[in-house]
């Protein structure tokens, strides 16, 4: 799997990049690719997303220059911003097994955060990765031309108060957490990025 580090990149820009990678992956001009990056502040609503899960008026976010984007992935509402590692796996599914794919992303992230002293787990029925009862990583995947796009967002040093403005993933009463919060010490984005890249390399094999 090809791994590309993009640094900070705006949501829309990253989406266009994903789609162009997706087209090239569909025609087999590139191998499976994992885009790793961070986003400036943005709230995104999946197709199943309900704006009612946004707890502050869109206008007040707009006043702060924070966009709310509706996007073609599964899942409800989430937040992206500084301190959060975002990964977009562009993987060709020869024989689609989308649940296995989502479970594999979870497994990769559980492995990756363990290296920073954080024990996390899946909760059946609630896609994502959970440290105890708090969500450390969100997952929402889209498939087009049998290639995956969108992906996961792992909180490294994310400002968690940003999540309190939404019902996280449409789940009332669910809270977000981060590696820094759980581990009690602050890892560098680069270290987490490398751990996630290695774990994805191990777990996201064999779909093509």
């Amino acid at each position, binding site marked *: 799997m090809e791994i590309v580090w993009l640094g900070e990149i705006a949501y829309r820009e990253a989406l266009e990049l994903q789609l162009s990678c997706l*087209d090239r992956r*569909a*025609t*087999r001009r590139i191998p499976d690719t994992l885009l790793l990056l961070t986003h400036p502040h943005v709230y995104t609503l*999946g*197709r*199943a997303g309900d704006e009612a899960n946004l707890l502050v008026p869109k206008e007040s976010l707009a006043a702060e220059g924070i966009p709310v984007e509706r996007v*073609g*992935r*599964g*899942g409800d509402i989430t937040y992206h911003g500084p301190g959060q590692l975002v990964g977009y796996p562009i993987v060709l*599914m*020869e*024989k*689609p*097994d*989308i*649940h*296995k*794919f*989502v479970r594999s992303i979870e497994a990769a992230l559980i492995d990756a955060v363990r290296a920073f002293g954080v024990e996390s787990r899946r*909760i*059946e*029925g*609630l*896609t994502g990765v959970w440290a105890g009862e708090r969500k450390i990583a969100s*997952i*929402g*995947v*889209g*498939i*087009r*031309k*049998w290639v995956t796009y969108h992906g996961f967002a792992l909180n490294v040093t994310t400002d968690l108060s940003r999540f309190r403005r939404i019902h996280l993933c449409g*789940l*009332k009463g669910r809270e977000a957490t981060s590696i820094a919060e759980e581990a009690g010490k602050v890892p560098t984005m680069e270290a987490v990025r490398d751990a996630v890249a290695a774990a994805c390399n191990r777990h996201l094999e064999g779909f093509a």
Partner: protein
Amino acid sequence: MLIDVVMPQLGESVVEGVVVKWLVEVGELIAKDQPLLEISTDKVDAEIPSPSAGRVAQILVKPGETVPIQAVLARIETDTAASPPPPEPAPKWDEETEGFPGHMARTSEPPIPAPPRVEPSVPAPPPPPEAGRIRITPVVGRMAAEHGLDLSKIPGTGIDGRVTRKDVEGYLASSAKAPEVKPVAAKAPEVKPVAAKAPEVKPVAEKAPEAKPVAAKAPEARADGDQVVPWTPIRKKIAEHMVRSKQTSPHVHIFAEVDMHRVAGVRAKAKLEGVSLTYLPFVIHAAAKALRETPIMNATVSGESTVLKKDIHIAVAVDTEKGLLVPVLRHADRMSLREISSAMDDFGARAKSGKISPDELSGGTFSVTNPGIKGNLFGTPIINQPQVGILRLGQIVKRSVVVEADGEDSIVIRPMMYLCCAYDHRVIDGVAGNGFLYRVREILEAGDFS
């Protein structure tokens, strides 16, 4: 040639998906691999590409409908010569898509029994036996089965005159005759496939052939207008669990007639304080108390052993808009009446928004089922494996009963209820089973719920 676009198999554990929206219209000319529609499952949204170039002949599923894998979603007429001139289907990546999974394509089959056919050009995995004949959604099939409806009698307003969920709901609302034939115990396993798999019952299952066919095999004669409703995966699980429970546990059903007037009194008092209580929390409360005193009823079977469970976790069947759920009240014996009541309200509310986690649906050690006001006088529930007992509420009816006061008999009007308890006679003897139900009745009649 007319080609079916079927709901693809999106993974081993994926049995159905929701149609999010259509990206094409009937009559539209389309290219091979052009996205036709979006479906959603779990947290994944997928676009389904067209298996072939042609013209969209039919769209058979509406957005919002849940469809099982292999159900026909749309039909595509590949012979566009017979129709208006074809466009130049030249999507930029069309030439290079030879390797694309072509498992979506399947040629049209005649509606009712058809012999398995060899795929024309596409090496698709063999479709499940009933595949492709599903012309109604699983929801409608389930509703029809539950209510014993003849779908041919219901005017359909869906695409191609198909009967939709709304049609069925309208029909049910308009004809009050709809009998509640819902099997009570069916409630339990519906959301508890876990229980069906629980290793605890394995040794027993090994002795009794596990995979005893649940479905009738012999083809029966069909009259015109008969409807064939293939089982949904959930229906199949229920069927398997029911048969297995009946084969595994010799059920004994015993009944108690309970005078609920003290319970009614407590309800009335609570109402004055602005708290609305149903009868169900009282029965759960009484059952939890009686279970604490009769450990053998709060047990599971594991091989040739009985496991007396330390904790009392009562699974309670709840009827919701989204079907039946069986949330588990953990440590029900430690909960007050009001706590039970508000936990049930909370389950009900969250069930509506689909936000009950699977964790909350497993681990029950005993079941209570309440078929509600249309539950009839009494019924004989089926045990939710691997548990050994289940309690069912009957309808509460005012009746004249004889009571003795100060040595004198008199006739009074009392709200009476039949309670049925089913227990597993492999494990529980009559003394214990009867003692348990008798105790539940005593607690309810005493009306002390502190």
